[in-house]
């Protein structure tokens, strides 16, 4: 059984992206780069909702980004990707496939496979479904020291409150704080 964890950079007002999806507020530096590289080395599968998948595909496929941030771009492009989408994928990104059939059964099967962890980035709608199905084993929230005023909330339309247990906290020199939680039972 492998772990499914969610990882996001969020603002103090709880957004993971600007209203138009913009991420230029990401407070990243070399220390973050080291962290991201290490985290990627523990990932066997990337899981996405359709919108985040399309955005990430475009971003990480760009030659400019590949050259600028090779150590993140190389694994992001190479890792197997599973996409939850109601319609066939319109964007081709290497090593991607659409999850077939029922969501819960499909994710359970993916978790039952051998290998490194499954990571969910962004994908707020999918995250809501997975939280409600109790399929997320760990929440990694990197709080950036900024208020945006408007944006896309990370946690959306949950029908029940979600209670978590803090398992780790790490402060970065940049002012980011990584908070790691697991669901409380």
């Amino acid at each position, binding site marked *: 059984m492998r772990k499914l964890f969610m990882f996001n950079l969020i603002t103090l007002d709880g957004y993971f992206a600007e209203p138009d999806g913009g991420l230029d507020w990401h407070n990243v530096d070399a220390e973050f780069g080291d962290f991201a590289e290490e985290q990627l080395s523990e990932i066997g599968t990337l899981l996405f909702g359709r919108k985040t998948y399309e955005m990430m595909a475009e971003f990480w496929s760009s030659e400019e980004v590949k050259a600028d941030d090779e150590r993140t771009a190389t694994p992001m492009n190479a890792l197997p990707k599973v996409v939850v989408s109601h319609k066939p994928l319109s964007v081709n990104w290497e090593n991607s496939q659409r999850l077939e059939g029922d969501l819960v059964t499909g994710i359970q099967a993916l978790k039952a496979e051998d290998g490194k962890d499954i990571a969910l980035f962004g994908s707020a709608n999918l995250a809501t479904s997975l939280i409600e199905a109790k399929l997320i084993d760990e929440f990694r929230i990197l709080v950036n020291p900024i208020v945006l005023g408007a944006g896309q909330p990370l*946690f959306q339309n949950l029908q029940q409150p979600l209670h978590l247990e803090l398992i780790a906290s790490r402060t970065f020199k940049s002012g980011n704080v990584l908070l790691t939680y697991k669901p409380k039972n």
Partner: protein
Amino acid sequence: MANIIATEYITLDGVMEAPNKWSFDFWSEDSAAFKYQELFASGSLLLGRETYTGFAAAWPTMEGTGDFGERMNSLPKYVVSTTLEKAEWNNSHIIKENVLEELKKLKETEKEDILLCGSAQLFRSLMEANLIDEYRLMLHPVVVGTGKRLFTEDVSRKSFSLIKTQTFSGGIVVLTYQPK
């Protein structure tokens, strides 16, 4: 000279409303000690009408609150409201007009921290006016889904410097920031 310190209970989805409904599960001795030290390091409370009204109805008669309760009741309270006629909780003062000017004066004359608690609307006005010197966000490990949020869509983009991170045994994390 005194600083305005904003201390806020919030959830992971940014809700600040009705902490009595979601904060108790995470309370622990170390987080209580933090609130105690904070209150005793402050010389006055700064409150908006709603938070003031809630506090004024509860604190004077609440039992078993010890010297924390005594200090809540004895400290000077500054209430910002254009509509409140009377503020009967012990040692309360209403600020009705020229709020920003009055608060700037207060920062000049007070000696100890002025503690802004809850009061989300006042919090946002003072944040926009750059009158808050320190922000303490007590992040509770819960997503509640609904309720009034501390930061609403009328605030403008702003960056902060992280001063301190404190974690408590019940899972609360206090993130302390100063304006950049």
